Every structure is written in C-alpha cells, then in structure tokens.
C-alpha cells in the first residue's frame, strides 16, 4: 500500500497530468450522463404531471380523507360485544361466500380451459417439434394476441355478447390464460431432451405418438407448475371481473365502495385478501412438490 502510493507520487509530471486529465474527463462524462438522465426524468415528470392532471392541492386536501377513509372502513369491535360486532360486520357472509365461490370457479374454469388450449397449441409453437415455420409463427402470433389484450377488456366485450354473469368472465380468463400459458408451455417444450423423441421416431412412432410417449412425460411437471401459478394470478384477476359485470365478488365490492358501505368494504376486502393468501400458500406447496418430483427422475 505504502509502496504503491509512493509510486503514484513519483510519477513523472507529464504522465500524471495526462492521467488526471483522463480521470477528469471520465468524471465529467459520467456527470453529464447523470445530468442528462436527471433532466429526462424531470421533463417526463412535468409532462406526465400535466397530462395526468396531478394536483398537489387536491392531494393534500384529499390525504386526510384517505386516512379517515381507512379508519372509517375499520369496524368498531368492542371486547364485551365481540360476537355481536363480528356478526354485524360480516352480516352478509352467506351471500359473500357464495360470490367468492363463483370467483374461485371462474378462475378455476378459466385456468382449466385456457391450459387445455395452451396445451394443444404449445406443441405446434415449438421449434423442435414443428418444421413448418409458417405454422409455428402463426400459432405464436395468435397466442401473443390472446395475451396482450387485458382480460378485463375481453370481459367487457364478452359481457356484451354473452350477457351479464360469470360465463363471459370464464371465457375472458380462458382466452388470456391460453395466450400466457401457451408461450410458457412452448418454452418448456423447446427445452426438453430430444433423445427420447429420436428414439420413439426411430421405432416408427408417428408425430402424435412421439409427443405422447417421449415429450409429454418430460414436460408434464413443468406444465402443471405453470398452470398452478396462473391459477393464483387468475384468482386475483377474477376478483375484479365483477367490476364490468362478469360475475363473482367484484360486483359486490364495487357496489359497497361506490355507495360508501364502509363495513362491507373492509369485510369483503378481508375475505378476498385471505382467500388470495390461502390460494398462494396452497399452490406454492403444490408447486414445490412438483418441482421436487421433476428433479428426482
């Protein structure tokens, strides 16, 4: 350390100057870049603030309303009358649990049918199984279209076509899920070991037989794990589909928020959050088991 610093000090003047020059210009370039990014951010913030009608005054006057809103939706629970208070808070639990079941079923059916569609299409979208570029690319584009449009937009259109109720919600989630899972499934299929496929083909298996006996056993755990993850996402998605009239608990939640039924807002939110957490935990355990079984041959 000491020796090194002596070397630095004893550098010839010209050499030291050129080094310092290089250091200064590097530091200046970095500062310029930081300034540029900072300026870009400021311009973006100002432009977005203008387009987004940001109003600090409205926010400041609104902020106490937000905190009072939060304290308003928390019900008053007193220890001596806890039972009565709780039953008053969750007065509609029968109806809400029914709607929650609807929400879960919408998510389940949407995931199931979406996964079945993705299952069928993913093999056609995989470069290692399908030679025809044309077929593969058209399937990929189709899946892309399915997943880029948000499911709630599909739900809006389907509510128009199929009428109010959970059915359009199921179809909307199924289509979106098909797009999202189709891409992931195809990636799983493209990462398989091709030797079993070659073996099956060499024994005279047709394309379908090769997929059934050589590809499927390799990809099934991965498919199941992704489908479970998607189910988790779809439960969240299905909980708000009711906002546009596509069934489930969302409709009740929106009505209670819009009409300022404070107790109901917190009760329904609590039910939804608890459900989401339970589903998260369940699917996580299942997925860990699946991944474990995948690693053990």
């Amino acid at each position, binding site marked *: 350390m000491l020796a090194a610093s002596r070397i630095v000090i004893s550098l010839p003047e010209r050499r030291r100057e050129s080094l310092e020059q290089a250091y200064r210009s590097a530091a200046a370039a970095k500062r310029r870049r930081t300034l540029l990014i900072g300026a870009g*951010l400021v311009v973006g913030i100002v432009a977005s603030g203008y387009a987004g*009608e940001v109003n600090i005054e409205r926010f400041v006057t609104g902020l106490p309303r937000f905190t009072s809103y939060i304290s308003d939706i928390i019900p008053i629970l007193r220890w001596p009358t806890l039972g009565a208070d709780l039953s008053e808070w969750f007065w509609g639990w029968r109806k809400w649990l029914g709607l929650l079941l609807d929400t879960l079923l919408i998510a389940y*059916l949407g995931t199931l049918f979406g996964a079945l569609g993705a299952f069928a299409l993913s093999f056609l979208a995989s470069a290692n199984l399908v030679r025809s570029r044309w077929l593969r690319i058209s399937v990929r584009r189709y899946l892309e279209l399915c997943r880029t*449009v948000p499911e709630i937009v599909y739900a809006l259109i389907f509510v*128009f076509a199929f009428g109010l109720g959970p059915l359009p919600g199921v179809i909307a989630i199924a289509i979106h899920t098909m797009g999202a899972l189709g891409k992931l499934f195809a990636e799983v299929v493209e990462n398989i070991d091709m030797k079993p496929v070659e073996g099956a083909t060499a024994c*005279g298996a047709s394309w379908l037989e090769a997929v059934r006996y050589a590809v499927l056993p390799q990809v099934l755990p991965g498919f199941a794990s992704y489908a479970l993850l998607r189910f988790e996402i779809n439960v969240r998605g299905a909980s708000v589909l009711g906002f546009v009239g596509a069934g489930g608990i969302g409709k009740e939640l929106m009505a209670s928020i819009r009409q300022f039924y404070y107790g109901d807002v917190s009760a329904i939110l609590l039910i939804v959050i608890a459900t989401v957490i339970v589903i998260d935990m369940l699917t996580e355990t299942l997925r860990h088991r699946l991944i474990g079984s995948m690693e053990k041959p």
Partner: protein
Amino acid sequence: MTSAIRNAALSRRAEIEARYPRMIRPSPRRHMLGAGLVLLMAGVAIFGLDRVGFSFAKLLDGLDRLGLVIGLMIPPSPGPMLMTYLGGLAETIAIAFLGTLIAAVLGFPISLLAAKNVIANRIVHFLARRSLDTLRGVETLIWALIFINVVGLGPFAGILAIALSDTGSFGKLFSEAIEASDRRPVEGVRSAGGSALHSIWFGILPQVFPVLASQVLYYFESNTRSATIIGIVGAGGIGLYLANEIQQAEWPRVAFLILMILVTVAAIDFISSKLRFAIIGKSRLAR
C-alpha cells in the same frame, strides 16, 4: 432400417420388461392416483360449469353475437374522436410513468426496513413485510376505486392507485435484491468509520442499483397495461373511452382503441427491454 431396430427392440421385450417393470407396467396405485386427479378436476369443472350457468345453447348464441361484433369492428376507425383518444393515451402513459416513479421512491425506504441484512430487528422486518403484502394483495383496480372516493374521478386517482399497489411489489422485490447483495462493501464502509446511512449509500446502493432500475423499467412496462384498463372504473386514461364505446356498441372505434393500446404496449415493451438490456449489460461488464 426402422423396422430392423423395431424388431431388435421387440425381440428383447421380455428382458426389457423384467429390467424396467415400472416403466412398462406402472403400479396400479399410480394409475388410480392419476385417474382420481383427472376425475376430481373434471367433477369440479362440471360443478363449476353448472354453477356459472353454462349451456351450449347460450355459448352458441353468444358466439354468434361475438362473430357479428367482430364483423362490425372491420374496418377499425376512430371516427371524429382521434384527438380525444390520443389525449387518453398520453394520460395512460402519464399514469404509468408517475405511478411507477412514486412507487419506486416510496418502496425503496420500506424495502430497507424489510431487508434482513439492513435492519436486523425481527419485529420491524415482519411488520414491513406484512404491510407490503397487504398493499400488493389488493388489486390495482380496487385501489383505484378507493382513490376515486378520495381525490375524485380522473387520472390522479389512477396514479395514486398504481403508486400504492406497486409500492408493495417494489418493496418486496427491492428487499430481495438488497438481501442478495454482497456484505463486504458494507463492512468496508463501516470499518472505515461510515455511518449506517453511509453504508447503505456507498455499500449497498451501487450494487443493487442496476437490478432496481431494471425492475422499475419492467414495472413501467406492465403498468402501461394496467393503466389502459384503470379507466374502466373512472380513474383516467384510455380505458374510459374503451368502456364507453363498448357500452355504446361503437365497434369500429373499439377495434381502433384496442389496436392503439396494442401498438403502444408493444412500443413501450421494445424501448424498455432495450434500456433494461443496456443497464444490465453494463453492470455485468463492470463486475
């Protein structure tokens, strides 16, 4: 050739069967388990279809109307509303941009509290994690509805909704990145006499900044999608027009709006993936 291999394999069938009994004849228990699972899933599906009021007549009827709607969507055209829609699109991008930025600014300090290697206190850690989970557990659209009650209809409610729900996501992601960071720079700063703040600023931040920046960009991308639909409940952006035109059955305009959204999302995806690649690539080179 093929049949020769096949015959060779088949002639040794008895031997192969003896060697891999589980491959040729899986145990009946496994069979039953698989069949039971399929039956259970099918049973729940049938129960569910019944409960959501599914019938083939209804499906065909709806598909019929859907075909009609799609026919009416062609050709997509904005009518006289093009400028309004472009304004809505600008609003959408503004909502996503400001929402993501505010979320990142709010999420960072909370993520420090939620990171085990910064705050060793288990209670603080637990509280920070659970409050982040709650923020994340409520859907953005629900936050939007609540903020409409607080600041009124309009894009500002959308910005706040995205900011709050993503504060939860960022807090979690950032804290994971911080926990995965190298401890040695922090120890170096502390042993040279730096305060706790110095150790965060000089020890942790330079390590995690590229990861954080790339996560923020990724969320900006996905928030552009969320911001397109947030207008459906009245929180600003292009979703408001989309919902209105669908309700009034102006199908060419609906198709035009959907195309606008798709193009914008694709453009933002492209830009942000380029930027992300630039940031991550640079950090890899630096190491």
